[in-house]
């Protein structure tokens, strides 16, 4: 057991490396407000989403990816919802037409620890960029 020091040092390093995301979250205070659910602002002008709330909560990302494939790759922009209503498959026009990104999307994403989905690297929030320019009709 001459190598005991090394073995235990190695083990300690391994455990530290494995748990470092948790420590990082604690250090940043991200893990502290877990008990309090986020205060999400719902759209005032609409009562119904493109799918029931439970479905949206669980699977909006899959739906967005499906929309993305349909629009970009197949040129199919028409979405017929569960209740027969027809929507345009568009994150900016349809989703953000009702929802407020900062008070809805971002708050819940921050709460669930997915604070920066890369959608926003390219897609815009009409409300944040609207000030810089009047909305054009492409």
């Amino acid at each position: 057991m001459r190598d005991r020091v090394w073995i235990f040092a190695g083990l300690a390093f391994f455990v530290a490396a494995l748990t470092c995301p948790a420590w990082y979250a604690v250090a940043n205070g991200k893990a502290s407000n877990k008990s309090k659910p986020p205060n999400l602002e719902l759209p005032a002008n609409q009562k119904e989403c493109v799918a029931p709330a439970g479905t949206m909560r669980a699977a909006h990302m899959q739906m967005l990816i499906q929309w993305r494939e349909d629009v970009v790759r197949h040129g199919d922009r028409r979405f017929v919802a569960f209740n027969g209503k027809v929507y345009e498959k568009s994150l900016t026009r349809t989703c953000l037409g009702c929802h407020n990104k900062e008070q809805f999307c971002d708050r819940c994403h921050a709460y669930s620890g997915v604070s920066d989905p890369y959608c926003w690297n390219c897609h815009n929030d009409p409300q944040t960029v609207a000030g810089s320019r009047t909305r054009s009709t492409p």
Partner: protein
Amino acid sequence: MKITRKDFLRISGLSLLAAGCKRAAESVSQPASSVRAASTQPVRWGMVIDLSKCREKDGCNACIHACNAAHNIPQIANHAHEVKWIWTEPDATVFPSAQTDFAPQTVTETKVPLLCNHCANPPCTRVCPTQATWKRDDGIVMMDWHRCIGCRYCVAACPYGSRSFNFEDPRPSIESINPDFPTRTKGVVEKCNFCEERLARGLKPACVDACPQRVFTFGNLADPESEPRQLLRERFAVQREPELGTGPSVFYLV
């Protein structure tokens, strides 16, 4: 029946292999272009650019500004990292093989608008390793910025210099963002999309509508009665480097 560990591993390995083969076979037998069901009327979008009209208002650039605004094209100061969808070059650069040594300077130096040719046989889509760029059934050479891995093989393959790569984050270089169209992210290739998003709403491309001289005539090349086809019947037109067999859908009236 008792399954030994070896049998289990063998069976699961074979099933994985079979599933993989099925997927590969599917993807091979189903090229990207056939995904969209063929519509009853064939469509091939194309454009005719009347250079004599364009020459009358040299340096107007309304088409470029309209495109830049509609598609959030960044204005990058460093020429090496420029992103361009529609831009101008001197006539001698655009049609190098159509030059005589004795042409008047007014012709060789006039600025000619350039954009993606939306080739009938595009070399760029052929080389893409992820089908992030492909030719749609209506002839538009489309880009999927979600799938592009940024290998720039298409940039090397395009003989027209129509493709730009995002060497940096484009957002800081966009003066005012049009929320209706996404910006791009660093590390993907982009190019003119023939205003596919406007066509879907029944509009013409932004450059076509913006031109005060009505230089651009846009329409369905597959329809013999369409505006561009009529123009091409009446006047002599050229394409850029047709000898490469790419079949450009953009025509120039000289």
